[in-house]
């Protein structure tokens, strides 16, 4: 008993695998083929049927043995993805004809993937690079499995293309319509978002410094700013489109309004963040308002300002895309999404969403990197 360490994932995977064997063929055509032996029906999983069962069972059994965690993780990683690959590869050409064993095997593979993540997250390597790698690999496997299950289920169950295209089709669509996507990105992001983001955040920052200088203004603006952050500001989009026309200027205006208040509130809070002790020290150095602002209070406010910049990076994209729902020239991400939905080109919509997600993450990532470089002294950066 000492040599075995059964995990519930492995046990459950083996059980599912055995049920799948008992239930018979993985896909429906094989049932027909077996029913009429003389016929020449083509059916999937001719060569790989037993390979799938074999790999799944073998990997599940191996993980129960007492082997080093790293080896176990590698075996699980290869096994789980091999099974998924064989399953998805085999169903090609027979979409929508999968039977219950297909989904049982998929669940089994997913359980092995889960076990792999569990093993990986229990690892506590000493080397710093290994810890960093683990921090990236674990969520990556999780994300990959979302895509795998999405692909396998949409194709296995034959979900209509219009409802939910498989990720591979979306990927093909992205690769096939790069010029269109590029033009949309240029219109929405490089014209509307960047301009609005810079102007809106800049205006919020300047207003905050002004409000900090005039206490009356601060007491009046801060509650209003907090209030406004709860309001559906996105609703000004139609008004801006009316005022500034269909081109990118109206979208930039929406972005300016949306990014102004988070920046204002956060910067005002940040300017109050420097401690009394430090401010007193600056006073003993006989430094005036401006040196204190530049050398003490703005650096102390930097984490708050970057927080606002991060919030704004998402808000800016949302503002620009939603504003395009109200009317645009025939280019732009929001325009593309709303028209392709109308034309039932759902894969194009998903492609646009994927690109928007990627652009949003890159935007956020750039701000976060700049933050790390600028606020290198902050405990949250030093500690991590």
């Amino acid at each position, binding site marked *: 008993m000492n040599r075995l360490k059964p995990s519930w994932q492995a046990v459950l995977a083996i059980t599912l695998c055995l049920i799948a064997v008992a239930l018979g063929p993985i896909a429906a055509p094989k049932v027909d083929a077996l029913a009429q032996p003389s016929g020449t029906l083509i059916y999937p999983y001719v060569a790989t049927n037993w390979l799938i069962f074999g790999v799944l069972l073998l990997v599940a059994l191996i993980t129960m043995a007492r082997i080093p965690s790293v080896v176990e993780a590698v075996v699980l990683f290869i096994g789980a993805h091999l099974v998924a690959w064989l399953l998805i590869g085999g169903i090609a050409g027979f979409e929508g004809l999968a039977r219950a064993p297909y989904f049982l095997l998929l669940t089994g593979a997913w359980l092995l993937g889960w076990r792999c993540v569990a093993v990986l*997250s229990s690892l506590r390597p000493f080397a710093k690079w290994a810890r960093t790698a683990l921090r990236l690999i674990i969520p990556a496997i*999780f994300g990959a499995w979302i895509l795998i299950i999405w692909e396998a289920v949409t194709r296995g169950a034959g979900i209509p293309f219009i409802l*939910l295209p498989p990720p591979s089709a979306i990927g093909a669509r992205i690769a096939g319509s790069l010029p269109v996507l590029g033009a949309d990105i240029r219109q929405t992001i490089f014209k509307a978002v960047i301009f609005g983001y810079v102007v809106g955040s800049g205006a919020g920052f300047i207003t905050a410094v002004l409000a900090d200088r005039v206490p009356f203004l601060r007491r009046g603006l801060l509650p209003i700013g907090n209030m406004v952050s709860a309001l559906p500001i996105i*609703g000004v989009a139609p008004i801006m489109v*009316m005022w500034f026309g269909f081109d990118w200027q109206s979208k930039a205006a929406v972005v300016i309004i949306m990014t102004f208040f988070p920046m204002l509130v956060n910067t005002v809070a940040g300017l109050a963040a420097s401690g009394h002790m430090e401010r007193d020290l600056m006073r003993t150095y006989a430094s005036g308002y401006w040196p204190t602002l530049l050398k003490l209070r703005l650096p102390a406010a930097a984490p708050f300002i970057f927080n606002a910049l991060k919030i704004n990076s998402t808000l800016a994209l949302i503002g620009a895309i939603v504003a395009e729902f109200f009317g645009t020239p025939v280019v732009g991400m929001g325009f593309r999404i709303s028209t392709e*939905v109308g034309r039932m080109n759902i894969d194009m*919509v998903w492609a646009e969403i994927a690109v928007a997600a990627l652009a949003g993450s890159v935007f956020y990532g750039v701000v976060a990197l700049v933050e790390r470089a600028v606020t290198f002294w902050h405990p949250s950066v030093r500690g991590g």
Partner: protein
Amino acid sequence: MDTFRDKLIPVTSILAGVVVLWYVFAVILNTPFQRDLDRRANETSTFSELIGKTLSQPKPTLPAPHQVAVNFFENTFLRPITSNRSLVYNAWVTLSSTLLGFAFGTALGIIIAVGIVHVATLDRSLMPWIIASQTIPILAVAPMIIVVLGAIGISGLIPKAMISTYLSFFPVTVGMVKGLRSPEIMHLDLMHTYNASRAQTFWKLRVPASVPFLFTSMKVAVAASLVGAIVGELPTGAVAGIGAKLLAGAYYSQSIDIWSALVAGSVVAALLVMVVGIAGRLVDRAMGGRPA
């Protein structure tokens, strides 16, 4: 008395300044169109007549505050609630999907947070995605969800509520993970010395500690939920709701209608945040919290 001097006076004076500026801009922005009208009618109006006219156009570029107020009052109090022009009716349509989505989102957020706090695998694999998902312009998915669900025959309240759910569960998850982890080592050790089980530690220490975090994040979530419901009404050609009202106003250039729909949305948002805040204070008091 202090709140009166420190808060009320500055806030009201700044709001008054905004209203004055609004009037000034209403005159400035509406003047070109009014001059155009006058020229066509072969009229020459004096300066004061011009100002009067710019503030009473039927479809102004920027409606004056009193026009919006009159429109808002008419559509809120004077129309029968069942009329589809009534703002109360439209606000209710939006509010119902907001509340449904908010309830789902809060429940989902709490469940995910509990999972993340208790299962190490979820913490390391799911948490990065939750944080990353905040960088994604989720609202872009809104038309998608509505069309997809509409194609399988689900329409009306549920798709909009799903967008609200999607938007509102992130803040709750992040806030609750922080809240459930907020008990200090000392308190956890104390529970350990009492030989408390995991469930007991959870119910008697972690949950009470997380309540303030829950209500703070619920305030953010309810505002996000309302935005989700409004945007969810945009691309579908929904017949009712604040978002539909905005879209209809944009199509027919009824600028006063747009503004009063915006005001209605803001009132709903302020009420929702206020209700959550009051609920938070009541729960805090019922749990024996002392005013800090």
